[in-house]
């Protein structure tokens, strides 16, 4: 018995010692020294993922706090919660007064912003490097204890309702793009607008907001990336001090993916009462970004749509003068990707001609090898944009946070770039055949 008690006592003492020493233990760093810049990753005990990258060229630090939450995490009848949360995060927390976050960043000459998308919410600040600890204090406080009360929620709801009405007034095609997303994604979670519906917003309660915050804005659903001029030891100590005692939340189950779409095309139309000119949305369902085909699709996006010398710009704008407006590109919502093209034309006749011209360009991609010169041009454009992701501390910090959120691992950017640069004309024909068949989704936008 004595021995047992002694053992228990020893165990207790050991636990006591460990409680002093072990509170700060985190998973050892993983260091990458590769191009285009070195970074080190850490996993804290509460699940917070931290990525640090030093750059001493200027006395600047960029801090990105990204949460894996967006509109796909909302339930029917409660849309707009993620965007509402983004706005609420600036209205104070237990130790930070209303607007104090903004005020501190402005006073020191820094910049901040936030963005909510379908699958993530990102807060970022670019500040003089001596202010890093302040920002960690601010970010940790709103992660730990956001002020959610009737008055804050009411104010944000009113602001967003105003924003929705302004957006609708300014963009006569906005509601058609929301309708198009529902058709193209074929699923509520992935297809509803980030800003939410006006009715849902009005009906959201303070408890709804608190529940959403407690569920998703937790360290084990977040990544903190810091890039710039800082001392790594000091930064780690500060992150530990401010974040590690924030308790983790319940693990978040993944959002069910939309069912595999039926192999058929969808054609619908919508009235846009405020629009002056007709147009249409055209979309294709693409494979996951993790697929090897995705590299080729990214290059196809450039061939068709990027730059004034891209095929669709040249044909629709310059040669045939069919369009007033042309936008498009590949869109990612978690594991779901789509190619979207939106066109505004002068009249209905131009709409029909324009569709034919786009299908004809896709057909050409399937049947003719792209010339080496055009492929080199497209790769150069892609490479320049790819490199631009690493121009300064903020794009680097965003890149690191977003890459981690996309796949839970950081891919080597240099090796990734090599994959794009290795694409051949044959790859382009093969992938165009696979994904640009007749199974398109078209939403015609009609005027009154």
């Amino acid at each position: 018995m004595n021995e047992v008690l002694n053992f228990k006592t020893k165990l207790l003492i050991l636990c006591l010692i460990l409680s002093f020493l072990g509170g700060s233990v985190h998973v050892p760093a993983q260091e990458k020294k590769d191009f285009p810049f070195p970074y080190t990753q850490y996993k804290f005990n509460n699940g917070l993922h931290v990525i640090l990258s030093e750059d001493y060229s200027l006395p600047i630090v960029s801090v990105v706090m990204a949460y894996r939450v967006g509109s796909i995490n909302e339930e029917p009848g409660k849309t707009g919660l993620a965007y509402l949360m983004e706005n609420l995060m600036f209205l104070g927390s237990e130790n930070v007064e209303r607007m104090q976050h903004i005020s501190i960043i402005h006073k020191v000459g820094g910049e901040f912003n936030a963005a909510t998308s379908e699958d993530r919410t990102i807060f970022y600040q670019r500040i003089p490097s001596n202010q890093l600890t302040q920002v960690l204090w601010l970010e940790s406080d709103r992660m730990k204890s956001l002020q959610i009360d009737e008055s804050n929620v009411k104010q944000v709801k009113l602001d967003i309702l105003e924003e929705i009405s302004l957006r609708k007034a300014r963009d006569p095609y906005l509601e058609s793009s929301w309708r198009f997303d529902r058709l193209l994604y074929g699923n509520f979670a992935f297809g509803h607008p980030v800003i939410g519906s006006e009715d849902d917003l009005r009906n959201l309660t303070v408890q709804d907001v608190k529940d959403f915050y407690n569920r998703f804005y937790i360290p084990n659903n977040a990544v903190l990336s810091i890039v710039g001029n800082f001392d790594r030891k000091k930064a780690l100590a500060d992150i530990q001090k401010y974040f590690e005692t924030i308790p983790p939340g319940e693990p978040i189950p993944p959002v069910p993916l939309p069912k595999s779409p039926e192999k058929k095309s969808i054609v619908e139309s919508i009235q846009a009462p405020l629009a002056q000119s007709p147009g249409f949305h055209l979309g294709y369902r693409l494979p996951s970004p993790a697929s090897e085909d995705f590299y080729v699709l990214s290059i196809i996006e450039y061939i068709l749509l990027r730059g004034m010398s891209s095929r669709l710009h040249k044909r629709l704008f310059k040669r045939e003068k069919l369009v007033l407006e042309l936008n498009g590109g590949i869109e990612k919502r978690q594991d779901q990707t789509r190619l979207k093209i939106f066109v505004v034309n002068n009249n209905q006749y131009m709409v029909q001609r324009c569709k034919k011209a786009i299908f004809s360009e896709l057909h050409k991609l399937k049947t003719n090898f792209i010339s080496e010169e055009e492929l080199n041009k497209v790769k150069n454009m892609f490479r320049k944009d790819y490199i631009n992701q690493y121009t300064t501390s903020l794009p680097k910090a965003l890149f690191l946070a977003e890459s981690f959120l996309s796949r839970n691992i950081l891919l080597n950017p240099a090796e990734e770039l090599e994959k794009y640069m290795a694409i051949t004309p044959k790859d382009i024909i093969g992938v165009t055949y696979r994904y640009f068949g007749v199974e398109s989704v078209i939403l015609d936008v009609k005027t009154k």
Partner: protein
Amino acid sequence: MKVKNRQAIILIFFLLSQIALNLPLLSQERFRRTPPIPEPFPTLQLPEIQQTSLYNGLTLWVVPKNDLPIISLKIIVFAGESFSPENLPGLATLTAHSISRGVSDFSSSEIEEKIEFIGGDFSAEIYPEYSLFSFTFLEEYFDEALNLLSRMLIEPTFIRREIDSVRTAVYYDLLEKNSDPDFFVKRLLLQALFTNHAYKKSTFNEDGLRNITQKDIVSFFDNHYRPNNTHIVFAGNLNFNTIFREARRFFNRWQRGESNHSALPSPEPQEEMKVCFIETPGAKDATIYMGNIIMPATNPNIFPLIVMNQVLGGTPNSRLFMNLRESKQYAYNAFSEIEFFKSCSVFSIHARVRPEVVESSIMEIFNDINLITDKKIPSFDIEQAKSYLIGNFPLQIETYDDLTSKVAEHKALGLEDEHWNKYYENIMLINSEKVFELAKKLPLKTPVIVVAGDGNIVLNQFGAFIKEVDIYNKKGIYLGTYKFD
């Protein structure tokens, strides 16, 4: 008894362990309560800017930056709108946008292809005194880029079809801007301040574009696009000697021109308050711009001015925003700014306010002006403004494009090196006395005030502080004068 003792020991250990476990949490609550004290501001090492000239007068500025395989160029040609003839407003703008629309053996489309082939972007912005071209590309195409640039600057073809296409693009761009009150109100402010001065020509509207001919453009180009009237700023992983050699290779054939660019005289500040109004029926907000002409950026007093602007309206923490938006709840936003020209600067204040409180807003703006002209700004406010300016400066030069833009602005305005190398020191030397001495002398109380808004709600409010208001349309055309009884 022995067992009881053991239990007591366990209990004590348990309690101790609980205290120990919770100690960090308790202390955390304390350190979370107040913001941490920032460390001292780190030193800023600015890249050294090297300069050289070719024999034909082309000036080259080189800023070393070697972290990415990209090169960024800014080309300053002293051929801004001030140099357009009186009867041809917009000529400098059409000329600048047309140089990339065809050279001797490449069409406009071929140039676009070539620029995109080298991973490039090319764009033009036109200021009153100069036109600024930005050109960024992948570093391995340095030769191709300089070759293309030299051809655009030396031998553009200016064919009619392309000029018409540029004219249409500029026309629709201006037409679209007519829906933005910040654009047309600011334009009218500058138009009113620069009456009888060449700078006024930069406030042109879309109406005059149709009068510009191909011959006008060719003649403007021949007169102004000359190497001795041009500076090029380079940033990238570049060796100074290589740049000099390559620039000589591609630009040596560019013929020097007559130098007819004597500095423009400084415009006179407005001596009496004047109000202009632009009717925007049904507008939900009213837009206010008020400002006056002050000294140019080369004046030694520019540093107190920069600090003063920061205190008054540089950011949402400044006085105007805090007063008009946060305290009075009149405004959506309220800021002040300094726009630099070579011969002068314009200090202006702008705010977007509720239409029914235009007069009250203008009075509050004057109150804030009085607070800096009639008494010293407390040192705390001055130090806070300096902290912003010093902290924000490196943020303005982080990208290749930002860096070359900043250097190009310095060179275009003819600023001394100390504006670059000693920016921190110059800002640090500013105190309340220096700002007060300057603020007293500035013509801030006799501004031109331009307001756009719904006339039914706004117009009569001006009667509280002025006898007449000049009425203009969005294009800046004078329509008449409204007099109050």
